[in-house]
C-alpha cells in the first residue's frame, strides 16, 4: 500500500522526523484562510509532480487562489487531484536523498541509500552517476550501526548535522520495523538554517503484513476515503491471492502459476492470438478461488471473450478442486464462450474425470490447448 505524502509525513512526525509546518486542504475556502508564502503540493501517488506542475510556490494570496483553482480537480499524471498539502516555504541550503528499502536480490537485507543529488529520480542517478549514491545494507537483526551513520554523514558531508541525521535514520528504520514498510524515502531531505527537514515522503507498506497491521491500514484507508482519494491497491487487495491484469486481446486466460501464465501469453501470441488478460490464482488455491477467477475474467473483460484458456499444472494446487470450481461456475452462469482447459498435476486423474463427465474437453499438452483456443477465437471473429 502506497501512502500519500501527507500520510507519510504524519508518520514522520509521529516518529520524530522534522517536517515543514503544513495542512491538508480540499476546497478554495480552506485555502483562502492560509497565509502566504507557501507551497501547494498535489496529493497524488505518482512521482515527478513538480515537473508536471503539481507543486507550486505561491508568494501572494492572488497566486495562491489562482494556482489552487488550477490544480484542485485537475488530472495529474493520470490521477485526479482532490487534496493539496499547503506547507510553509523554507530556506534551503542543500538537498539530499535518503531512503531505506529492501534489497531482495543482492544483499537480501534492508538497504540505506543516500545521495547528495536530492530531489532527483534516484534510480536514474544511481545508473548515470553511481559515485553520487551510497548504498549501505545493514543486518535487520542488529539494526543500523553508528558506523553506518558516520559513513553516510561523511559521504553527504553532513558531519555538522550528525546527531540530527542519526535521529532521522533511526526513525526511518523504526517506521520500517514497526509499520512493516518496504520503502521509507525522503527525497529531498533539506538542510535549512533550522536543521534537517523532510520536504517529501514516500512510504510503501507491505500488503502481506496487513493482518498484523490492521489498525494502521484501516486508519490510512479511512483517511484516503475521507479526502476522496481512491488508492489503486484497493482492488488488488480485494482479490485475495488472484492477480488480474487486463490486456488487449480476446482470449481469456487463467493460470495457477505465474511462470506458466506468462508462458501462455507468449505462446498465444506466437500462435497468432492475443490474450485478454493475465489472471493468476497463486500456488495454493481452492475451488472458490477458481470460481472467483472465472468471474473476474468474464466480468472484467473489455470486449466479449472469444474463448477462455485455463492453464493448470498442479503442485500444491489440487486438480480435483480446480475442476470443482470450473464446473460450479459453469453451472451457475450460462455462457457461449468455449473453454479450453489444460489440466495436469496433483490429483489429475480425478480432476480430469470430473471435467470429462461434465462435458469439457481437457488437454494434457499446453501447445495443443493454446492452438485450439486461438483457432476457436479466430473462427468466431
Amino acid at each position, binding site marked *: 500500500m502506497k501512502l500519500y505524502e501527507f500520510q507519510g509525513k504524519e508518520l514522520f512526525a509521529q516518529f520524530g522526523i522534522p517536517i515543514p509546518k503544513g495542512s491538508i486542504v480540499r476546497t478554495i475556502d480552506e485555502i483562502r484562510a492560509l497565509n502566504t508564502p507557501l507551497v501547494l503540493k498535489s496529493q497524488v501517488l505518482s512521482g515527478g509532480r513538480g515537473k508536471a506542475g503539481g507543486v507550486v510556490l505561491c508568494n501572494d494570496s492572488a497566486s495562491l487562489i489562482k494556482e489552487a483553482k488550477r490544480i484542485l480537480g485537475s488530472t495529474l499524471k493520470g490521477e485526479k487531484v482532490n487534496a493539496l498539502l499547503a506547507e510553509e516555504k523554507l530556506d534551503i541550503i542543500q538537498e539530499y536523498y535518503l531512503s531505506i528499502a529492501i534489497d*531482495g536480490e543482492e544483499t537480501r537485507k534492508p538497504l540505506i541509500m543516500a545521495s547528495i543529488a536530492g530531489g532527483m529520480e534516484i534510480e536514474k542517478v544511481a545508473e548515470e552517476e553511481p559515485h553520487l549514491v551510497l548504498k549501505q545494507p545493514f543486518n535487520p537483526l542488529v539494526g543500523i550501526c553508528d558506523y553506518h551513520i558516520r559513513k553516510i554523514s561523511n559521504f553527504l558531508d553532513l558531519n555538522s548535522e550528525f546527531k540530527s541525521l542519526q535521529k532521522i535514520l533511526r526513525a526511518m528504520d523504526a517506521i520500517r520495523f514497526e509499520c512493516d514498510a518496504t520503502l521509507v524515502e525522503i527525497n529531498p531531505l533539506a538542510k535549512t538554517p533550522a536543521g534537517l527537514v523532510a520536504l517529501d515522503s514516500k512510504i510503501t507498506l507491505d500488503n502481506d503484513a496487513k493482518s498484523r497491521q490492521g489498525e494502521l491500514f484501516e486508519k490510512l484507508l479511512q483517511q484516503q476515503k475521507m479526502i476522496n482519494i481512491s488508492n489503486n491497491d484497493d482492488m488488488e487487495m480485494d482479490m485475495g491471492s488472484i492477480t488480474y491484469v487486463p490486456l488487449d486481446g480476446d482470449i481469456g486466460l487463467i493460470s495457477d502459476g*505465474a511462470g506458466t501464465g506468462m508462458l501462455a501469453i*507468449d505462446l498465444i501470441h506466437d500462435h497468432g492470438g492475443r490474450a485478454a488478460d493475465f489472471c493468476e490464482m497463486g500456488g495454493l488455491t481452492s475451488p472458490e478461488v477458481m470460481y472467483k477467477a472465472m468471474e473476474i475474467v468474464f466480468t472484467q473483460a473489455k470486449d466479449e471473450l472469444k474463448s477462455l484458456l485455463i492453464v493448470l499444472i498442479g503442485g500444491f494446487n489440487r486438480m480435483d478442486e480446480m475442476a470443482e470450481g470450473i464446473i460450479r461456475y459453469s453451472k451457475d452462469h450460462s455462457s457461449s464462450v468455449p473453454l479450453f482447459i489444460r489440466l495436469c*498435476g496433483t490429483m489429475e486423474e480425478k480432476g480430469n474425470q470430473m471435467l470429462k463427465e461434465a462435458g469439457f474437453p481437457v488437454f494434457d499438452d499446453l501447445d495443443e490447448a493454446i492452438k485450439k483456443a486461438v483457432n476457436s477465437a479466430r473462427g468466431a471473429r
Partner: protein
Amino acid sequence: MAILIDKNTSVLVQGITGRSGGLQTRTLIEYGTRVVAGVTPGKGGMVVHNVPVFNFVDEACLNYKVNAVISFVPPMVAKDAAFEVIDNGIPLLVLTMEGVPQKDVVEILSYASGHNTRVIGPGAAGIIAPGKCKLGAHPARMFKEGHVGVVSKSGALSYEMGKRLTEAGIGQSTVVALGGGPIWGTNQKEIVELFQKDPETSVILLLGEIGGATEIKAAEYIADHVTKPVVSLIVGRHAPSGKSLGHAGAIIVGNKGTAASKMEVLVEAGVHVAQNPREVIETISELLR
C-alpha cells in the same frame, strides 16, 4: 549425486498436520523421500502418514537425524518456525508459503546466513532429484532421473518444462524452483554454481521471467565460470510493463527487466536462448546427443 538433496536426505516437515502439509507429505513419502518427523506446535504425539509429530524441532532432532526441512506453516508464523530450524543447525530449509511479510523474510535470511542454513524460497515449490528424493510440490510423473539440471523461479514453469523433458525421454539431475520473489533465499546464480560442480549434471536449463536482474547475475556468472552448456527460456516476452504478473518480482519497470534485455545478456554469456519450450527440448536433445 544430485544437488542439495539425495537418497540419504532425512526430512522434517513443519506444519505436517495442516491440510496442504498433510497432502504434500503423503506425496513426498509416496515418492520415496525419507520423511522422518513432523512438527506442529500443540500436536506432539500425533502420527501423520506414519510419521511421528513433535511439538518442537529440537525434540524431533533428539530422536532423528534431520538434514532438511520443508515448511508448510502459515506466512505469519513462518519466521518463528524458520528460526527454530536455523537454531537446530539444519542445513537446508524449503519455505513453501507465500505472503510472508518482507520484514520477516530479511530477518530469516540474515539469521540463516549467520548459521549456515540454506533457505529456498519463500513461496518456493521446492526441489526434486528425480528417482532419489522430492522436497517440494513437483508432480512425480513429470520428472525422471537424468542429467539436465533445471532451475526456475516459478514452480509451475519448472513442472511444465520437466513434463516436456520427461515426455521427450530426457531426464533431470535436480529441478529447483526458487519462488517468485521479491526476495529470494537462494537465487539462480547459486544453483547454477552447484550444477556446474555436480558430476551428474551435464546440461543446465535456466528458466527465467521478466522483472529484476537475477537472470542477468546468473548470466555474468555463467560467462566467467560455467563450462557446461546452459539453455535458457525467459517467459513474459509479451508481458505488459508496470504490472506485477503473479510474482511480486515479475514486473517490468520502464524498460528494465524485459524478457528481451535478459535474453540479450544471456546470449552474450554464451547461453543457448530458446524462444519457446519446443526449442528448449530440441536444443537440449542436440546437446545430449
